């Protein structure tokens, strides 16, 4: 079984701070990590490899330094890693990203594609399902358990108020939740090999992809503006009877469209 895990290198958002003067993200000195949901996907792939045998490839799209995330994946036990990196892919929205990843996945070949449910920097949860659509394969998102049964997969799909157990044919794409497992650590021997490994870097020229559909130019959506939520001014405090307090709270929540 060929498993490809799509991983994204993201800034550790628990460390992200806003520059109060410019209102932009301070990225300097912020450590990068493998996106947590994606790392769970990697662990799930390695667990399947251990249980039923599989070849696991980690695939990432990003700037050259995303290679570090791929080396971590190799050190955890992935067999291969591929980086898609080219300035011409820059500024891609989820459509252009998924088009690009789908073309790399076609080149790699796969029985199972694992993606994290969503990345902690963008939180869109869109790239996985969009890849599945471009490849014309079934998808299940919000997956918290995966088992191979015969030539199909049995998965647990979470909803807000419950779950489903589904049987899915392969090839297919699953998006997984970080709650599903605790990713293993890199092993010492693995780290050494991983940091010597040659990681192929694929550019636009290595992929069979429509150049009109990649990068900023190929993105249907555009960021019109971005801004930080204004820094908080001290809130109002009322010293009142409970009844009056309740009325004040409701009034404020309605004003803020919270209720």
């Amino acid at each position, binding site marked *: 079984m060929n498993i490809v895990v799509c991983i994204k290198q993201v800034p550790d958002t628990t460390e992200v701070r806003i520059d109060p003067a410019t209102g932009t*993200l301070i990225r300097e000195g912020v450590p990068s990590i493998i996106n947590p949901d994606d790392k769970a996907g990697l662990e799930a792939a390695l667990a399947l490899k251990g249980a039923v045998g599989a070849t696991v490839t980690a695939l990432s799209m990003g700037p050259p330094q995303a290679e570090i995330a791929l080396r971590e994946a190799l050190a955890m036990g992935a067999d291969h890693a591929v980086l898609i990196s080219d300035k011409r892919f820059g500024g891609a*929205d*989820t459509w252009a990203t998924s088009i690009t990843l789908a073309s790399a996945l076609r080149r790699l070949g796969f029985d199972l594609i694992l993606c994290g449910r969503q990345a902690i920097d963008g939180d*869109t949860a*869109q790239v996985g399902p*969009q890849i599945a659509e471009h490849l014309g394969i079934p998808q299940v998102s919000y997956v918290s358990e995966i088992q191979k049964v015969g030539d199909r997969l049995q998965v647990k799909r979470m909803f807000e108020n419950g779950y489903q157990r*589904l049987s899915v044919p392969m090839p297919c794409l699953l998006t997984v939740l970080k709650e599903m497992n605790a990713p293993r650590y890199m092993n010492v021997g693995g780290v050494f090999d991983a940091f010597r490994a040659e990681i192929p870097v694929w550019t636009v020229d290595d992929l069979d992809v429509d150049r009109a559909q990649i990068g900023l130019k190929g993105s249907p959506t*555009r960021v019109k503006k971005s801004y930080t939520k204004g820094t908080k001014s001290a809130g109002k405090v009322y010293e009142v009877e409970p*009844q009056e307090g309740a009325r004040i709270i409701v009034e404020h929540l309605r004003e803020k469209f919270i209720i």
Partner: protein
Amino acid sequence: MDISSYHGVMVFAEQRNGHIQKVTFELLGAGRAIADKLAEPLFAVLLGHQLTTQHSADLIAHGADQVIVVDHPYLADYRTEPYTKALAQIIDQVKPCIGLVGATTLGRDLAPRASARVKTGLTADCTALEMEDGSRNLLMTRPAFGGNIMATIICPEHRPQMATVRPGVMRKLARDEARQGEVTTFDVAFHEEDLSVEILETVIEQATLKNIEEASVLVSGGRGMGNAENFDQLRKLATSLGGMVAASRGAVEAGWVPQDRQVGQTGKTVRPDLYLACGISGMIQHVAGMEESGYIVAVNKKADAPIFEHADLGIVTDVNRLVPALAEELRKRSGE
């Protein structure tokens, strides 16, 4: 893509087990305002099996001009492929300018797949929608980086302009039985391979799976609640706000609430839209776990409690009398 041929606003009317979900009515409220500004119709797309005329009537009473229904056994339970097929075919036929889907665990599976099939862009988890003055661009605003940054996204050259919208953010319209609307059925040719994903089991568990990090509203209690009975009052309040109960370390140590509800340095970090801190003094260890919340309301009888320094709204009063009063006030208002 000839974008000038796309008109109107389309809302995906999410139903589960025959129950139209609350977010659907919220989308109809938001969609109605946009449709009125464009002076174009508001469509609701209702997919399912054994749907009733009451379902369509509910959608019309909440703002839809036209309900497009696909009723088929393949749509009885949600599955990505048959739902995508139906929604994409309707979009291709009706050509709406805007398409809105609730950002639920169902909508966030369907919308990216369907938008990719009709070859348009999609903006995730929007919290504000408005038409740009002087254009047909929908301004779709969403939080990123865990809410630290807000971004306004446009989709200028593709149609429909599609967005998923966070539940609980938009306002639904009051039900109006006098509203008139049209109901049409739409035929989709399904094939057996559309059901390649098999449902083995469906289990409904009331909210037990959700963890507090995912809740958009948290009603959080501390030692100031005094005892377990008082703490239980918070659960009713949380339910009426569509949220969950959380707690400070003090309340967990007192045994009033399990540890997985604890917010703070030794507990969880949360970022709900609303954090209502009841009887929590606001030690730095607690604040570290909730200060990024969208809107913080604190209730405490001590005016010098540090929690007030972090609150958007503070009420100095007896929290155990305020909680039932607030539940009552909310009940009154929801009836309006």
